[in-house]
């Protein structure tokens, strides 16, 4: 029975395909595997918006939206309706075509990413053997969309915001990719399905997730930090920092396009966290051997939700980073640490299993982490900024 529930979606899809004439078989099978994802994640987006606002409120000792529906449940509906009804203003000097294309590209890129994410056991839209590479390739198109948005609206704030966003996303893409390289080395394959299968096994009750290895943990941490930066969230949300440049690259958007941007942003967040899950947290694998009976997609989504909560949590606490701090952190801490992490993984791979291997790699990672951080502080990159004029 649990397998049926587990594979309910797959079976239903095959079942439905039965009704489709042979000629259209491939198209329909594609549609059937894509449409649920297209529906599921926007819903998740809606839920997340509420969770985020209520969570932030709670963290800041306030209620959060509670007017629309009981406990503010219908807030996303309200947002959606609002964004749909809002007038869609395009600046006169804007470049109409690119202005329109930007959000579309952003959303398509974000949706394309889900093709390789295994939501559940053999529930993956496209099992490419270069899945991770596909993920990063398509992910990098987001920057282009951001640029198109920023530039096409012809306003200084939007352009500046776009430039900052792109700079940040590019510089954090490096640690992101390098962190994933560690897992690929361990898993030995670029295919996400293979990676999850590698982590599905258990020793005793403990799963073989990569996060429970020293290099895995650091990789996971680096991946998460880079993911937050990639999706311009919280500590790295300088591009659309309201207090400084109002809303960043989507300042000139209103109405539905604005909503699309929001959707794109959140989808980006979900995608990177999903990839984090597949790479480090064992994808749809159950945390403990005895819990395997719960369907795989459930585990996937629970892990996804926990990561989302973590994101929200981080958003609630950390102050915004300044641009130079942000860049320095990326190039002078994250990149070196990820490289060393790869080295650590290499060492881990060649050393015989055992406590020694653990000790060496953890030592390596911890020492490098401390020395890099001290390097950061001694270089006063994080010191309180003294204004020469505004003192």
């Amino acid at each position: 029975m649990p397998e049926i529930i587990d594979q309910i979606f797959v079976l239903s899809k095959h079942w439905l395909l039965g009704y489709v004439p042979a000629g259209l078989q491939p198209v329909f099978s594609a549609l059937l595997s894509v449409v649920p994802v297209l529906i599921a994640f926007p819903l998740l987006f809606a839920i997340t918006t509420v969770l985020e606002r209520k969570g932030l409120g709670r963290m800041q000792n306030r209620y959060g939206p509670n007017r629309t529906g009981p406990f503010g449940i219908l807030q996303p509906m309200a947002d959606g309706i609002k964004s749909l009804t809002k007038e869609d203003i395009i600046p006169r000097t804007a470049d109409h075509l690119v202005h329109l294309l930007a959000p579309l590209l952003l959303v398509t890129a974000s949706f394309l990413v889900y093709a390789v994410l295994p939501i559940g056991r053999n529930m993956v839209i496209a099992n490419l053997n270069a899945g991770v590479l596909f993920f990063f390739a398509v992910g990098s198109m987001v920057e282009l969309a951001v640029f198109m948005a920023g530039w096409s609206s012809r306003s200084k704030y939007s352009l500046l915001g776009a430039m900052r966003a792109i700079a940040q996303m590019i510089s954090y893409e490096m640690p992101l990719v390098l962190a994933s390289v560690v897992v690929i080395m361990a898993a030995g394959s670029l295919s996400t399905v293979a990676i999850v299968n590698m982590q599905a096994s258990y020793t005793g009750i403990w799963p073989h997730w990569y996060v429970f290895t020293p290099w895995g943990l650091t990789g996971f941490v680096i991946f998460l930090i880079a993911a937050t930066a990639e999706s311009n969230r919280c500590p790295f949300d300088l591009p659309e920092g309201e207090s400084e440049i109002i809303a960043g690259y989507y300042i000139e958007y209103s109405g539905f396009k604005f909503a699309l941007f929001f959707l794109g942003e959140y989808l980006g967040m979900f995608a990177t966290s999903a990839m984090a899950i597949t790479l480090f947290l064992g994808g749809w694998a159950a945390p403990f051997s005895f819990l395997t009976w719960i369907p795989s997609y459930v585990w996937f989504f629970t892990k996804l939700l926990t990561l989302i909560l973590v994101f929200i949590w981080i958003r609630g606490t950390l102050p915004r980073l300044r641009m130079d701090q942000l860049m320095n952190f990326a190039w002078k801490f994250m990149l070196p640490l990820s490289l060393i992490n790869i080295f650590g993984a290499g060492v881990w791979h060649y050393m015989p299993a055992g406590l020694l291997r653990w000790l060496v790699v953890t030592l390596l990672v911890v020492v490098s982490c401390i020395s890099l951080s001290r390097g950061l502080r001694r270089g006063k990159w994080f010191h309180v900024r003294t204004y020469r004029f505004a003192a």
Partner: protein
Amino acid sequence: MTISFLLLAAITIAGTAAAMSLRNLVHCVLALTLGLVGLAALYLQLGAQFVGFTQILVYVGAVAILAVFAIMMTRSAEPTEPHGSSSFQLSGALIAGIVFAVLAWAVSSGTKALQVQTLQPEASVNQIGVALMHGFVLPLEVIGLLLTAALIGAGVLAMDETRGAR
């Protein structure tokens, strides 16, 4: 000559042609990205997945952005002046046309004799990894060196002199 090939070819050609002829530079770059994506799709169709995705990652992700940054920083985003002397244009286009004609002639006459292998060769990432590590180790190292050099060089070149001096 499957439909998908024709479609993708059309997209690529349209993208690249637009890239070369549009007046506004940013539009050119965007058209270029379209062309490149089309090309990547062609690679996928030819079965070289890894190359296709690297193409997207490298070109669409990095080079396009780089080009756009360059355009931004050299203030050439404003509408450029007219194309200048027609004779200059004409000669360039003419030469390109001749080159195409010659190459086309070469291709058409060349490939007749070649016996074509129809089976779809398999180029999994694993095989590519193996080939990289065994057959093409030297080029890999050299490419590593080259990329680092390019990285540093580009950085230094584009760096604002005053920053270094401060």
